[in-house]
């Protein structure tokens, strides 16, 4: 298989997304409106949590800053994943209108083209909001900073992004084969994100098990956060689980890449 080097892929991604940015800039006002509204909507989302904390002191044993830490970290991870791979939920439409065929004809890996497809800067709205929330959490939460905790923060964000991206790719692979099927990826990414915004201690243990062992989104922020915020694990898993996010991310990405390739091998195009 003639794999383009990583640099070549990044370049191609840059070329294609830049093309989309430029063509969306053509409608500058709508671009600004979209960016602001996406920022405002996500901000209202966090405001709901603040309002809740007006009447309670702790949620599942977590203070408002600590919940902001969870909220900010998962939102950042999803924000980045959505920024780079948000177009993966349109694979089905790309199959139906035949443009996936066109992508398969270009000397750039198809996944890179799909991810850059209709690259939208307005997706930065969510990232921006998450940066603010996460920054506020880091500044105000009571964290005993040690070097391992410091290192765990960027590792958590990178792995979290990778895990969400892997889910988006898996859902995209599914759409290659079943282009008419409803998009199931968003249920896992947005659904997972909404769950992870709160301490998992508020959910039944079966749910925590499910997001650990079945769809391991808990590795996006929950396990590293247990170590950073110095909390006990409700499932009593060994301590190394709190450092296992890279492993979870690697497994997820590996599975996603395999499924994506298998999906393209079984791609059937359209009849016309």
């Amino acid at each position: 298989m003639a794999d383009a080097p990583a640099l070549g892929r990044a370049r191609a991604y840059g070329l294609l997304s830049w093309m989309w940015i430029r063509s969306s800039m053509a409608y500058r006002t709508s671009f600004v409106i979209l960016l602001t509204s996406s920022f405002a909507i996500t901000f209202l989302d966090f405001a709901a949590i603040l309002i809740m904390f007006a009447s309670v002191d702790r949620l599942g044993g977590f203070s408002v800053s600590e919940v902001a830490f969870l909220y900010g970290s998962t939102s950042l991870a999803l924000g980045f994943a959505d920024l780079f791979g948000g177009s993966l939920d349109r694979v089905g439409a790309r199959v139906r209108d035949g443009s996936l065929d066109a992508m398969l004809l270009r000397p750039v890996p198809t996944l890179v083209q799909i991810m850059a497809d209709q690259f939208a800067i307005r997706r930065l709205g969510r990232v921006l909001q998450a940066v603010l929330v996460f920054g506020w959490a880091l500044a105000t939460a009571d964290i005993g900073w040690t070097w391992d905790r410091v290192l765990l923060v960027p590792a958590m964000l990178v792995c979290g992004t990778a895990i969400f991206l892997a889910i988006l790719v898996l859902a995209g692979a599914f759409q290659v084969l079943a282009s008419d099927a409803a998009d199931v990826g968003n249920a896992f990414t947005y659904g997972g994100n909404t769950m992870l915004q709160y301490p998992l201690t508020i959910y039944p243990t079966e749910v925590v098990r499910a997001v650990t062992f079945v769809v391991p989104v808990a590795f996006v922020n929950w396990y590293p956060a247990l170590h950073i915020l110095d909390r006990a694990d409700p499932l009593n898993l060994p301590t190394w689980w709190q450092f296992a996010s890279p492993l979870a991310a690697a497994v997820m990405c590996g599975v996603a890449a395999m499924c994506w390739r298998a999906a393209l091998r079984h791609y059937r195009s359209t009849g016309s």
Partner: protein
Amino acid sequence: MSLIEVDRVSRTFVVRRKTSTLRRARQVVRAVDDLSFTVTAGEMVGYIGPNGAGKSTTIKMLTGILVPSSGRLRVAGLDPSAARVELARRIGVVFGQRTTLWWDLPLRDSFALLRRIYRVPLTRFRQNLDTFVELLDLGDLLHRPVRQLSLGQRMRGDIAAALLHDPDILYLDEPTIGLDVVSKSALRGFLREVNAERNVTVLLTTHDLVDIEQLCRRVMVIDHGHLVYDGELAGLHAFGNARRTLVVDLSDPAPPVDVRGATVTRVDGPRQWLEFPAQASAAPIVAAVAAGYDVADLSIQEPAIEDVIRQLYLDRR
């Protein structure tokens, strides 16, 4: 050496049909069935067949979009589906039915983006672009987004786009669909030139036999996924059940003439039309008519290629 090798290739599709609200029947469609052929560098081959014969499926396999269910494929020495990204630099593809360009981008920007994606050196790109703009008359279209172009204009844009990176092979799936007579003939001229001057190997499907007559020495006919004819266009006449017509003008109106090997299909006063198989020699029939009747004039009509093909498709229903 052959540039394209297709060796016993098949491709099936499993389709599920709703027979009632709950039941679904599984059906296997053999879109391409045990197909073999080779194409040599520099050839321009016409690939024809009735609707649903498997032409587009073949092209999608040759480009690596579809993986064959069985058989062996080599294009420029590469296995298309396994080395798809590598092969992409060496082929150009035009699907007449839909564009491969970016809908919202002006044609010029689409071309510039393709240059970067294919890493075409700037000087070469400019040369190619200038040539195509002139030959395909794209000058006034360059600044227009693809979605604003008419079908024929878009097709010209697509063809230029497919050739910008100097591919060795050009696949054209119904490139003349929906074009007017003038555009068609301009496009044919362009393709002839691309094939001759740039030595691009061309495989084209079409339902317009004039395309084939004017462009391709070799024609392949596919039906139900099988190759049913592969050879010179002229040879098609002799193939299948094509029939030639002997038009006889007798000196006086007469009942239908009776000679071996030919049947009268029409009588109009002194003129009679006799049909006989295209591959049979006309000489004995002419001799028999001349010997038995008082003949004023004789002429032989070759079957139109359209009729030959129609007969071929019909016979295989």
